[in-house]
């Protein structure tokens, strides 16, 4: 599909003031507030545009499946460093970047937006623009590409995205150490303060899981220091954590993502059951299953120095992202108007009235 078709659709919607619901593979349609507007499909706009492994950069159309990108990178022994979850086979690059999702490697390698180098986008007036580029260092103009990341399509439709990529590490090993969640926080933070090649840490109500990546010798030495048992199928474990396929995530209750300083004490909510928590990102991202009123969860995360997101389930007609201060919301609204003056792109998907 040519980008001019998408451009025409947005131009037409701009003239008539019709709200659009930008839709890729639909794998994350449950994320954010309730979508409104006419569907605008991007999946036809697919394909890798350029990839030269020695440049450590890949550029692909937004409708390209995440799996196609992983395959292409894998052939050259490279990967997306932020380890994005796909939440379904149909996940696209555009949807991943629009949601700004990062996986278990995030605290050690960086987030989705850290690796976005450039993008082509259509704003809410139907104007095609190009920001950033295909080089790793680029400080010309405001960093609109990173602003687009995680903006849930409310500022523009992504046409293509350039990402920095990195090589796979040679050896990967997962270790398990028995620990109560409240002890796990301290232990994970202590290990994160060492130079060991740790690329993921998570804890459930029984164990801490460590992932080590590096050369054979460095992984061996690090494993000896951590002294855990080797987990047989580490690859599968981290995939299940990333994709929410663990039994923990099979639950009808609303799922909260709590982002806090990695040393925030556990449990964050008095009287909560350890089995309702899963600690990811070495303690910096905590999954919490709860029917508690949203205000309470938002307030709890804020008190701990972080913020909560109603990630899946619950009332999507209310706010699902942590409330912004008045001054910050005003800036958000002005930025929204700067990119999408008639508010036709995914209106209300992130916050009410945005």
């Amino acid at each position, binding site marked *: 599909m040519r980008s001019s078709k998408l451009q025409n659709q947005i131009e037409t919607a701009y003239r008539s003031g019709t709200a659009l619901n930008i839709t890729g593979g639909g794998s994350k349609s449950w994320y954010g507030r309730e979508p409104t507007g006419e569907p605008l499909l991007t999946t036809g706009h697919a394909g890798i545009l350029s990839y*030269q492994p020695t*440049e450590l950069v890949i550029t692909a159309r937004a409708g390209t499946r995440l799996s196609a990108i992983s395959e292409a990178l894998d052939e050259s*022994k490279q990967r997306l460093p932020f380890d994005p979850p796909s939440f379904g086979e149909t996940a696209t690059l555009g949807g991943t970047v629009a949601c*700004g999702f990062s996986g278990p490697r*995030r605290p050690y390698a*960086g*987030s989705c*937006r*850290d690796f976005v180098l450039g993008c082509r986008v259509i*704003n809410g007036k139907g*104007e*095609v*623009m*190009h920001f950033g*580029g*295909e*080089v*790793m*260092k*680029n*400080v*010309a*103009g*405001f*960093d609109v590409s*990173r*602003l687009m*990341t995680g*903006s849930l399509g409310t500022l523009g439709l992504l046409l293509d995205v350039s990402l920095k990529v990195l*090589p796979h590490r040679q050896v990967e090993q997962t270790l398990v150490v028995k620990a109560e969640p409240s002890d796990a926080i*301290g232990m994970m*933070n202590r290990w994160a*303060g060492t*130079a*060991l090649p740790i690329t993921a840490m998570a804890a459930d109500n029984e164990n801490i899981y460590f992932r080590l990546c*590096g*050369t054979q*010798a*460095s992984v*061996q030495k*690090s494993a000896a220091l951590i002294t855990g048992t080797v987990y047989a199928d580490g690859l599968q474990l981290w995939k299940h954590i990333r994709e929410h396929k663990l039994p923990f995530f099979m639950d009808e209750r609303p799922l909260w993502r709590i*982002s*806090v*300083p*990695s040393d925030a004490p556990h449990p964050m909510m008095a009287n909560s059951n350890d089995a309702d928590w899963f600690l990811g*990102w070495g303690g*910096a*991202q905590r999954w919490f299953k709860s029917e508690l009123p949203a205000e309470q969860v938002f307030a709890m995360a804020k008190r701990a*120095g*972080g*913020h909560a*997101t109603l990630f899946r389930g619950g009332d999507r007609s209310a706010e699902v992202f*942590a409330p*912004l201060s008045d*001054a*910050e919301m005003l*800036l958000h609204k*002005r930025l929204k108007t*700067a*990119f999408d003056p008639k508010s036709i792109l995914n209106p209300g998907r992130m916050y009410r009235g945005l």
Partner: protein
Amino acid sequence: MLRDKKERLISRLGAILSPEALLSREEELKPYECDGISVYRQLPLLVLLPERVEQVQAILRLCQQEQVAVVARGAGTGLSGGAMPVEGAVVLSLAKFNRIISVNQANRTAVVEPGVRNLAISEAVDHLGFYYAPDPSSQIACSIGGNVAENSGGVHCLKYGLTVHNVQGLKILTMDGELIELGGAALDGPGYDLLALMHGSEGLLGVIVEITVKLLPKPEMARVVLAVFDDVERAGQAVADIIAAGIVPAGLEMMDHLAIKAAEAFAHAGYPCDAQAIVLCEIDGTEEGVQDFIVSVEQVFEAAGAVQIRASANEAERLQLWAGRKAAFPAVGRLAPDYYCMDGTIPKRALAGVLRQIGKWSEEFSLPVANVFHAGDGNMHPLILYDANKPGELERTEAFGAKILELCVQSGGSITGEHGVGIEKLDSMCLQFGALELTQFFAVKDAFDPDCLLNPGKAVPTLHRCAELGRMHVHDGQLPHPELERF
């Protein structure tokens, strides 16, 4: 008129600042007329040196009422005129905000004020085994607030990223004095990524008053390999081969013949003076990992045709091998009265061609060029040698520099990798962006600062300026801003 306004401003500012924090006499203002790029100068109306956030807030509100432009300034080491005053503006120095507020060892973050020097952060957390990764060459002097405003890099960007990758939170003041917290000790905050947007915004969107930086554990070990080449293209290929081998060096630097000669004469690092190019490849991490990768690096360089390969055996040798590279700018500075440092980035594949073309232009313009190159991430620093006292030579140098930047853009790169646009590269911005992008940038600026009072006239050129230059980025085959007359 201006005099009246200045007097009124001084009297109103007197209620906010102590007399010694308000500079108004010409001899006091003089040191603030430029930043690290001294060819661009402008005397400010006043210089203000607040020491509390409430004072900055009051200053901004007052300046908004009086419609006076504000240019924020850190250490003044920037290389694009970002902190150069604009006419009639007050300079808002954040130099007195120089405290490290707190260090959180468990969470590996530090909260600092904007005037703290880059290197002072690493020094303050050294005893905990931590450091702050971005290391611009000015790190002993430059301030962390300025680093955020410019999104500064350094020699370790390939592995550890730029400032934007190493800052978790900011407190900013908007022009109307509102304090806004972006990010903090937790990761990936809600809403738009204003934290990223602030990085590299060159003081146009807000005034940074507090920064939460990420601290990294110091690697157990670092070693560097020096590879010498008798051909620049072969050196460029060696850089690509290192990446292709799956190695992520902590630093991957390249220098050409003139830069090598100058650096060796200055720093005696042990570089062979007849070499056409050298590549420095540093590996850090656990001891075992470093030893494994050093072997791979040596193998790659050998296969790439290096005429000499030397790996540092200890920390003293490592520092010695780096000494030449780190002294490259002052060393080149001894070859001519002045030098002009370019900052374009290119895809690595374009390196050989771009260097060849720069060599040709160097002859045409009769201006020597030494090339220092953050090879791993494609960031070039051609240093054009000239003499500002020779009539016309500065203009010739600027013209030569603009051609290099144009070539970077044509090669798929950018006009600036880490120094920023400031006042210096405004014209070159017209090459990299079309009218739509520039208009969108102004709309972003307008969202933060509707009266255009924060560092006005920097970073983003007006459409009119681009049209007058006749240098236009052709977008999708169409000439931009057809509404403007062209001469």
